[in-house]
């Protein structure tokens, strides 16, 4: 929970978090080692110095550290788990739905659990998706189109099987499709993070919401074009947001483009934890103001209303979170389950 100087409570849903295991014991090969090393590069390059962890902690920080950084030290009220399996790189996977579910079970009001699918799994993957929905009631998935699978180095939303999976998502009510479209780390010729396939998918499946993680950066122009055309396309700010610290001028340019083309209703805050910590990021974002020249030039503003939406209200809409009710539950002033009473209510009735 973040409180403004005027005492207003800002409800925060962190749209992009992970609980990963990148430790040596879990690395299958050199790719696994290089993957976590690359993340660490992002972490050290764009975090304020006092938030930089030693590499060993970064490799495997565990559930308690995560809970603490997001909700105790940090200002997140809720966080969305975005799994990244990478089973070709890590023995037990890098960050799976099942591992995330353990923490979600412990803190059901804190986390939104997302699943994942891979069209290359064919029919078996469709069955697995059904199981995920049945078991965890997921409403969203994270797709990692550059994930390796044997000889394949990636896939596209326009692939025939991907279309079948999306049709299945419509049927199952898995309406939020988060797609990683960020900096290229894909080797070789095909750019699996190209945003072009979002266009086709968003047109074909108007019932689904497509949250383009990292706003397609560095393909921001392509992303903006698509998002203007497709009302069911959203931008996830993870990776764009940390520039607010090291390159604030640059951040101003990116956010003003996004506000101009998409507007404040279609942008979602995400820390990309544990690459970055929500504590400093939310503080800087809340304190941030666009320079007058940009406000005038582009006719946009990052005012409190926009910040409220970006930090939580937009995600709450996508995930059907009743914000006032949820706030009350988190603060212990409302019962966690229907039909129950809080301790305070019982105490009042008993006159104790």
């Amino acid at each position, binding site marked *: 929970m973040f409180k403004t100087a005027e005492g207003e409570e800002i409800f925060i849903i962190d749209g992009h978090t992970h609980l990963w295991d990148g430790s040596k014991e879990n690395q299958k090969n*050199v*790719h696994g080692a*290089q*993957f976590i*090393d*690359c993340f*660490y*590069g*992002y*972490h*050290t*390059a*764009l975090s304020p110095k006092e938030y930089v962890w030693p590499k060993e902690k970064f490799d495997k920080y565990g559930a308690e550290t995560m809970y603490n950084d997001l909700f105790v030290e940090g200002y997140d009220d809720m966080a969305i788990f975005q799994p990244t399996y990478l089973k070709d790189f890590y023995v037990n996977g890098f960050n799976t739905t099942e591992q995330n579910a353990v923490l979600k079970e412990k803190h059901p009001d804190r986390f939104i659990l997302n699943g994942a699918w891979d069209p290359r799994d064919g029919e078996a993957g469709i069955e697995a998706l059904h199981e995920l929905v049945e078991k965890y009631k997921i409403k969203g998935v994270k797709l990692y189109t550059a994930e390796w699978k044997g000889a394949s*180095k990636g896939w596209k939303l326009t692939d025939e099987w991907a279309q079948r999976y999306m049709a299945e998502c419509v049927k199952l009510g898995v309406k939020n499709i988060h797609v990683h479209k960020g*900096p*290229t*780390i*894909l*080797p*070789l*010729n*095909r*750019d699996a993070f190209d945003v072009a396939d979002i266009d086709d998918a968003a047109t074909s499946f108007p019932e689904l919401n497509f949250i383009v993680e990292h706003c397609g*950066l*560095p*393909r*921001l*122009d392509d992303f*903006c074009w698509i998002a203007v055309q497709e009302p069911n396309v959203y931008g996830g700010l993870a990776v764009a947001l940390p*520039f607010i610290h*090291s*390159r604030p001028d*640059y951040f101003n*340019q*990116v956010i003003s*483009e996004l506000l101009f083309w998409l507007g404040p209703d279609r942008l979602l805050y995400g820390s990309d934890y544990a690459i970055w910590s929500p504590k400093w990021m939310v503080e800087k974002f809340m304190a941030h103001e666009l320079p007058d020249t940009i406000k005038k030039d582009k006719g946009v503003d990052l005012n409190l209303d926009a910040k409220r939406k970006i930090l939580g209200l937009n995600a709450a809409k996508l995930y059907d979170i009743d914000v006032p009710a949820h706030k009350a539950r988190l603060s212990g002033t409302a019962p966690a389950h229907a039909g129950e009473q809080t301790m305070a209510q019982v105490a009042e009735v008993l006159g104790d």
Partner: protein
Amino acid sequence: MTPHVTSGDPRVAEVWASLAAVTDPELDESVTELRFVTEVDVDAEDRVHIGFRLPTYWCAANFAFLMADDMRVAVSSLPWVRQVLVDLRDHMYSDTINEGLAQGRSFKSTFSDEAVDEDLDDLRRTFRIKAFQRRQEAVIRYLLDRDWSVQAILDLDCPHLATLAIDDAEAARQRGRYLEIRREFGGPGDTAFTTAQGEPIDPRNFAEYLSLLRRVRINTEFNGHLCRGLLQARYDDPAPDGEPTLADFIAGRVATQVAKSNTGGNDGCRK
């Protein structure tokens, strides 16, 4: 790791100077300024050895190949060079790329199984257009900042742009860079600012046109910021403070840059 200088051999300086002209296609910045080149060596048989590194193990192989190939071509044009051996390090395709280059093979044949659809020339052209747009924006921005009207900017021709007194060193450098790439794009005429297709810019759509250039720049800068940060994090060497290093002096790059901004680059842009 710091740029390694073997000796006072003037040939080493010549190699550094030709490498300085090779750019990362995506960033449109010199591979030496980006500190991708770590080592230059000339052996007794006049063979040049170039040590080359990238910000991540995953950096796209096509870009890596392109840069390494451009380095090979640039350095090969020095008359005394018998062979150029580029040694790309710490990359997932180091061995494949180094071997392909040493045998003078193309990207396609080097990655025969995985790169069937790839046309490196198309890729090079795509990024060259972006470089044109980005360099053009820098010059237009400068003129706008100096209160030039849109019409005056669009009326400008290359010879006048080339001889224009510019009161800012970075803007002068950008002007030189723009005029250089202007010869490749922008059509056969002398108009200083045209679209990358050589079409005139419609003054009524000037704001939209500028906004397109701006988006191109934002993307490129994103890569630039990220690449520099990642390279620094990966190799743990301090960020350059903008001061020229020993290698710059040996390569004569410091003098070159000063000379360039004084003369303002070339004065015509006909192909």
